[in-house]
């Protein structure tokens, strides 16, 4: 995706380890708080980005490789855009019913809490989730 306003760009790269999820939530909340959004909207963004990273960590953790998850945030056309990318070969089969349920719940939360969501997976190349939140007064 082409980024029109590079002055607003924040990039984070984290190892595919669950202990980094809290760091992501803190950074993304801080970033979202820069824009005129309500506390609820900032909270929604935090949950959605964390869920997207959850999915990326769960799928990449099974590849037995040291992988990094890249998170980009920027403002574009009265929206904040969040891009979460991993380099896994796609979504492996879930291990058991509980994991299937969790993945379903995660995507449901992302789609409900954000204004736009697009998920792309290229076999062998990785997955990318783009999410957008409208800034009403921007």
């Amino acid at each position, binding site marked *: 995706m082409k980024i029109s306003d590079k002055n607003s760009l924040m990039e984070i790269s984290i190892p595919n380890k669950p202990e980094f999820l809290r760091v992501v939530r803190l950074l993304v909340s801080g970033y979202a708080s820069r824009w005129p959004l309500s506390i609820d909207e900032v909270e929604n963004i935090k949950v959605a980005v964390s869920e997207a990273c959850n999915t990326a960590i769960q799928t990449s953790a099974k590849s037995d490789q040291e992988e990094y998850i890249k998170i980009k945030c920027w403002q574009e056309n009265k929206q904040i855009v969040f891009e979460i990318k991993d380099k896994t070969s796609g979504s492996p089969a879930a291990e058991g019913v509980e994991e299937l349920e*969790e993945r379903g719940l995660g995507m449901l939360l992302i789609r409900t809490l954000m204004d736009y969501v697009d998920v792309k997976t290229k076999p062998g190349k990785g997955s990318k989730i783009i999410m957008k939140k409208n800034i009403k007064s921007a």
Partner: protein
Amino acid sequence: MDLKLEIKKEKDYTHIIVHGEVDLYNANELKEKVHMSTDRAISPNLIIDLKDVDYIDSTGLGILIGIKRRTTEKGGVLILVLYSDRINKLFEITGLNKIFTIARGFDAATALLQK
């Protein structure tokens, strides 16, 4: 904040107060600690108090579904105590508010057990 559990075993229920954030990093720890405490409990009934939970993700919600399933299999009832609107909202979005028995306070939870 790290995950912390306060566990009180009563005659009619086990009361577990969860503190901190529940996510992919520590959700299994929550599952194991709850299972360990309920395995040795007098009653199969369980009250899980999420009043001091700042954040819970889909992994945490999935673990709660598993705990509910296990409690029901043992003939018990699981009641969740939720105070925070933020956490309540996650249960509403996912439809889990229709699956779980939810009380707004501990007294309301014990009253539900006596019904």
